[in-house]
Structures are given as C-alpha cells and as structure tokens.
C-alpha cells in the first residue's frame, strides 16, 4: 500500500532523466508527468484521509541504514499543493519558453526540482533531508539561470546558490551534532529521545539557522527578492510557492515533533518577533517596489513572516484541541499563499512576456489588453491580502482570535497592519493597470494555455480553499501532524 510513496518520488525523477535523454519527447512527457503527479497526490491525500498512515523502507533495509519514506497528513497536504502548482506551471512553461532549445534545457532541471521537493516532504531521516535540501538548492539555482542573458540575473542566481550552500552546511553541522548525541538520524527514533542537553541546543540552533536562511526570515532574507524577482516566471512561481515553503515545513517538523521538549516560549516569541518584522518590512518594500515581480517577491517575504507569527501563538495555546485547529489554520495559510503566489507570478509573466517589461508605473492599459491575466492577478491579490472567502481570511481570523485568546494582542496588531499594507500594494497595482489608454486592438498571440493556469490557480486560492477548508481540517485531524504539537 505504501508503494504510493515511491511513485510520488520516482515519477518526476524518471521524467527528469527521460527529458534529458529524449528532449524531443519532453514537452508531451512533462504534461503527462504533471497529470500523473496530480492523480498520485490526490490518491495519497485520500488514503491519508481514510486514516491510513504510510511508511516505507526502500529495499527493505533496516531503519537507520537505508532510506525511509513516510507520509502523514501535513506531508500529504503539501504533496498535493506541489502537484497542483507544478502542473499549472508546467502547462504555462510550455508556452512561456518559446525557444525550443531553452525548453530542452529547462525540463530536466524542472523535474529534478520536483523530485527534490517530493523527496524532502516524504523523507523520514535527517541525513536524507540534508541531501534533498542540497538537491533542491542546486536545481533551483540552476533553473534561475534558464534563458538568462543579463548579468544581473546570473549574479542573483549565483548569490542564491551560495547562500543555499551555506544554509545546507549549517544544517549538515546540526545533523552531525544530532548523530554525535543520539547515535541515530531517523526522525521516528529521535522523537522520543530528545532531551535538554547543551549539544541538543547547539544542534537545534544549527539546524534552525540553516533552514531559516532557506526560508528567508529577516534578517537572513537579503537573497530572496533578487533571486525570485529575476528568474523566469514559472520558476519564480515555484520558488516562491513551494521552495521556501518546504524549508518551512521542515522547520515545523523539527520544532514541533523532534525538539518540542527543548523549545521554550522565549525562543518561540523570538521567532514570532522576527516574523513580525518580516511582515511589516516586506510589505513596506513591496509598497515601494518599482517592478511587479519585485513586488511579488517582497510580498513572499511578508507572507512567510505570518507563518512565523503563528509559532508563538500556537505554542501558547492551552489545550490539544484548539492547538490542532490553530495548526490547521497555519497549514491553510501556507497552502493558500502557495497557490495564490504562483497565480500572481504566472499572471505577471504573461504581461512581462507581451509588454517586454513589468514596471508598475507603465502598466496603464494592461487590464484592457490582458483581461484574463489581470483578473487572475486581482483574484490572487484577494487571496494574498486575506479577504473573504479566501483561505487566508480564515487562517488570519484564527490567528487573530488565538492571539487574543492567549493574551498576546500584539500579534493581532502585526497581522492587521500587514493586511492593510498588503491591500495598499495590491490596490497600487490594480490602480496602475486599470488606467485606460483609449480604444486599442487586443493583442494577438496570448494563448489560453498561457493565461488559464494563472486564472485556475487564483480561483482555487480564493474560492476553493476558502470554501473547502473544512475538509482540510478533517484530514489534518486524522494525521498525527497537529497531535504532537
């Protein structure tokens, strides 16, 4: 039954290798792979919802020696998010990269990145997590350079790569400290053993700081806007929606499952404080950004900040049940941001491709010329700001009421200020785009497959997640994800 875990990881890996060897087939093969991933992701979450938990040891090696894969509800929800976003971005990339040569170089790296994401989500062992983190960083940095002819883009990709390597090394140092202290790296074997020793604290700091670099939490954020703002649109979408999110997923696992005996409320408050700075500062930078993609990248900074603001609120919640609900809100926020941010980047990409730039002060007439893409940007804005009925609205509502419940009203102030600022920077974009230029013939050549993915994702984030949130909570309640909080 747990062979589904192998399928999730192996299908993109095989697709990557096949695209490398048979580039002529790669366009069609990629579409097929995206569909297969979506179906597998759906089957995985369905079986998790029926109460089955998945665990598999590759090759039958005993734990600690071989590679083990496992999936709980949290991992399942993120696998489905990755499958949805990467299918949309795949459909989009087939039209976005008009040059065949560029596409031939793009697909193998694209599926390698997917493999790294899925393997990271399902790994049950700290060292495999390190390897998947490195794979993720390398393939993401390489993807940033696809079709890049400007020194600026290459330079930011290089900086992204170097910072990623520093983050992975910190993580590896933490892994080796854990091994020295406990003699095992399996997450399940470690879970019961972690005790408050000096070496454990050092390990926690090393692992956390390595991952915080990859999550771009203030003050380790400086690489993100340049890297996400200069990559090709489908790559930016996946970087912002998924790559930073899976690093955060790993932090959740470490903080709440492994190191929960060592986590103090002071540490949680510190993390929340950094998150709060990220929320405000990222929004302010987005408000003054000159280019649409930079705006979206700074918005990612601030939205990732909210995820960290959840941490001290969750840690202070008194009983198991409310904590589980709060955890569901955190996951809902992550999913909602992932889908909406991907939609935003894909929508911006359409405009950039047709107009040749993405400067906000020269957007006049875009709403007339690209109605579908611009509508998608607007809807994505609704979900990112957190207006009803989006999933982010429910999540922020839960964050605010929980922060009042635990007597930490300052997190509510941060959330409300961040929301107002987000509304301000989106209104700035919409205002610039809705300026009409008089009657103008609609541009030709904007195909449905270039515009539809952004619209589908934006609708999913605004309506799908908001109205279907209850089933997400049910699935999360089945798994152990929130239970161990």
């Amino acid at each position, binding site marked *: 039954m747990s062979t589904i875990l192998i399928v999730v990881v192996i299908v993109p890996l095989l697709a990557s290798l096949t695209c490398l060897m048979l580039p002529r087939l790669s366009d069609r093969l990629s579409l097929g792979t995206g569909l297969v991933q979506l179906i597998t992701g759906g089957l995985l979450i369905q079986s998790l919802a029926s109460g089955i938990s998945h665990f598999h040891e590759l090759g039958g090696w005993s734990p600690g020696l071989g590679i083990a894969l496992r999936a709980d509800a949290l991992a399942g929800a993120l696998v489905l998010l990755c499958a949805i976003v990467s299918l949309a971005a795949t459909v989009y990339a087939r039209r976005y990269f008009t040059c065949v040569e560029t596409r031939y170089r793009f697909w193998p790296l694209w599926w390698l990145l997917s493999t790294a994401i899925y393997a990271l989500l399902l790994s049950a062992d700290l060292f495999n997590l390190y390897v998947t983190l*490195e794979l993720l960083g390398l393939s993401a940095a390489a993807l940033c350079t696809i079709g890049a002819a400007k*020194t600026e883009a290459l330079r930011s990709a290089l900086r992204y790569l170097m910072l990623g390597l520093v983050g992975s090394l910190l993580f590896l140092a933490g892994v080796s400290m854990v*091994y020295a202290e406990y003699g095992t790296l399996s997450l399940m074997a470690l879970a019961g053993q972690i005790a408050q020793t000096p070496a454990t604290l050092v390990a926690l700091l090393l692992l956390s700081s390595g991952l915080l670099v990859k999550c771009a939490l203030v003050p380790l954020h400086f690489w993100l806007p340049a890297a996400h703002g200069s990559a090709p649109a489908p790559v930016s979408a996946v970087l912002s929606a998924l790559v930073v999110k899976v690093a955060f997923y790993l932090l959740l696992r470490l903080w709440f499952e492994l190191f929960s005996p060592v986590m103090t409320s002071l540490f949680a408050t510190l993390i929340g404080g950094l998150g709060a700075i990220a929320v405000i500062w990222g929004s302010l930078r987005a408000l003054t950004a000159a280019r649409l993609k930079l705006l979206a990248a700074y918005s990612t900074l601030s939205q990732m900040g909210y995820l960290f603001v959840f941490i001290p609120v969750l840690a202070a919640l008194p009983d198991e049940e409310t904590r589980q609900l709060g955890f569901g809100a955190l996951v809902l926020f992550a999913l909602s941001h992932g889908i909406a941010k991907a939609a935003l980047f894909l929508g911006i990409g359409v405009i950039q491709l047709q107009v040749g730039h993405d400067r906000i002060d020269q957007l006049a007439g875009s709403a007339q010329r690209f109605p579908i893409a611009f509508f998608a940007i607007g809807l994505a804005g609704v979900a990112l700001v957190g207006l009803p009925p989006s999933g982010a609205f429910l999540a922020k509502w839960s964050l605010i009421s929980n922060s009042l419940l635990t007597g930490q009203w300052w997190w509510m102030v941060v959330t409300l200020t961040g929301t107002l600022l987000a509304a301000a920077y989106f209104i700035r974009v919409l205002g610039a785009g809705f300026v009409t230029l008089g009657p103008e013939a609609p541009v030709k050549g904007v195909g449905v497959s270039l515009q539809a993915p952004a619209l589908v994702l934006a609708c999913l984030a605004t309506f799908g997640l908001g109205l279907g949130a209850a089933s997400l909570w049910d699935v999360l309640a089945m798994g152990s994800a929130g239970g161990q909080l």
Partner: protein
Amino acid sequence: MGSSPLLYAVTGALIFGIGLLASLRDEALLARIIAINISGVGVFLMLVSFAYRGFELAPDPIPHALVLTGIVVAVAASGLALALEKRLAELPKSKTHKEDSP
C-alpha cells in the same frame, strides 16, 4: 569520548566556523567557493571523529557513509558554482543599472 577524538571534533568545528565566515565575506567568488568547501571539510572531520568508538574497536560505519555522500554533494555544488561563474565572466560587461533590489 576520549580526549583525542574530542580534539578532532573541536578542530573540525573551528574549521567549519572559519570557512563559513570566509564564505560570507565580500571576497572574489572563487575564494568564497573554496571557503565553502573548507567549511564542508570541517563538518566531515567532525563526523569522522564521531565515528571513533574506542581503541581496537571497529569505527562506526554510518558517519563514513554520510561523509562520502557529503563529498559527492560538495563536488556537484562546487561544479555548478564554477560553471555559473564562468558564464558570468563570458558575458559582455553591461552597465549595472540600478534597480530597487537590495
């Protein structure tokens, strides 16, 4: 842990720290790539020292396997960084226009 493995572990930690600091400094890119590799060697030295289980006892094989994997990853990462650097050097020097990136 006896005193000599501890000495190796501490040395490894020092090398890790020195390499990490150097990789974050505003140096030539090649120097930073080498610094990251040095930092990696520090972690590997720590892992190898953790494998020691006592005199006349076989060392723990798992850290060795981890170090081998780590070396492979480090080689691949250095290769990618050097390839990017080469492409950057081959591009015509364009005027760096100011954008509102940090």
